[in-house]
């Protein structure tokens, strides 16, 4: 069980965010923030996540990536609640894919920090 490696980490590492990539941490806090804001009960997200993981576990030919399932469970719920549709998400994701490196701001610059003139 390779995933058990590193469990003897010293107590100073307690509480370390255990994400393989920054987007995973951001999606996690987005889910909790949306729930706190009343977009959906947390139990609904839990149910969506359980369904997503169960569907994956019914297959055997795909690697298990927890945060991929976390993201898809959130997207499924947001689509169900008509908050974010799959079509608009795919369109924007495709647009982001075409952006050159370093041009990843797909939203307005109104997020509490300044950008240098350019």
């Amino acid at each position, binding site marked *: *069980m390779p*995933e*058990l490696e590193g*469990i*003897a980490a010293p*107590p100073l590492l*307690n*509480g370390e*965010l*255990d994400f*393989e*990539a920054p*987007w*995973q*941490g*951001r*999606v*996690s*806090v*987005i889910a*909790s*923030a*949306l729930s706190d*804001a009343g977009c959906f009960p*947390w*139990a609904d997200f*839990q*149910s969506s*996540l*359980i369904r997503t*993981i*169960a569907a994956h*576990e019914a297959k055997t030919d795909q690697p*298990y*990536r*927890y*945060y*991929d399932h976390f*993201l*898809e469970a*959130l*997207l499924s719920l*947001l689509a169900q609640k008509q*908050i*974010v549709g799959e079509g*608009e*998400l*795919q369109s*924007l*994701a*495709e647009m*982001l*894919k075409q952006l050159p490196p370093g041009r*990843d701001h*797909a*939203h*307005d610059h109104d*997020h*509490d*920090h300044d950008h240098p003139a350019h």
Partner: protein
Amino acid sequence: MTSPSDPELRARALEALLIGKGLITEAAIDDRITLFNQRVGPMNGSRVVARAWADAAFKAELLLDATAAIAPYQFVGGQVDKLVVVENTPEVHNVVVCTLCSCYPLAVMGLPPKWYKDPAYRSRVVREPREVLAEFGLMLNPDREVRVWDSSAEVRYMVLPMMPQRLAAADEATRIAAIHRDALIGVVEV
């Protein structure tokens, strides 16, 4: 077209759409990540355990109704609406899992470690807990009963580990520092 195999792009698109719809701000996301890093975490659970070791009345309250017992701390992070604390003894060792996904009491234990979410841990610790604990380096006496607790969206568990003799004369801060997250899950002892 991007495919579902592009999760990072989809996550970035989701964040941008939510910001565009005014449902969240980038600053709010950053603030929450900072919160998890700095304020939420197993240090809270360690504080609770250290107090239970020193305060018999608190320990009794904790084992009776953990949600009520920790309420005065006002820990942030949530997911402790129904928290159950199970006590390790010389006769019984407890270990926690979530067999369905990764239910975990964030407010007292922080974010779950990667292996907690791994299908191998989630299935094996139920079937062969002694073997899994041995892989964590915890070799239990065969006479000691192992109880596996399945956290869910409704009930989440935390282990109250036994205080080792080496900490009997230690101050509270030293005890808190010695109580590792993994001991709160039950895969190691303090």
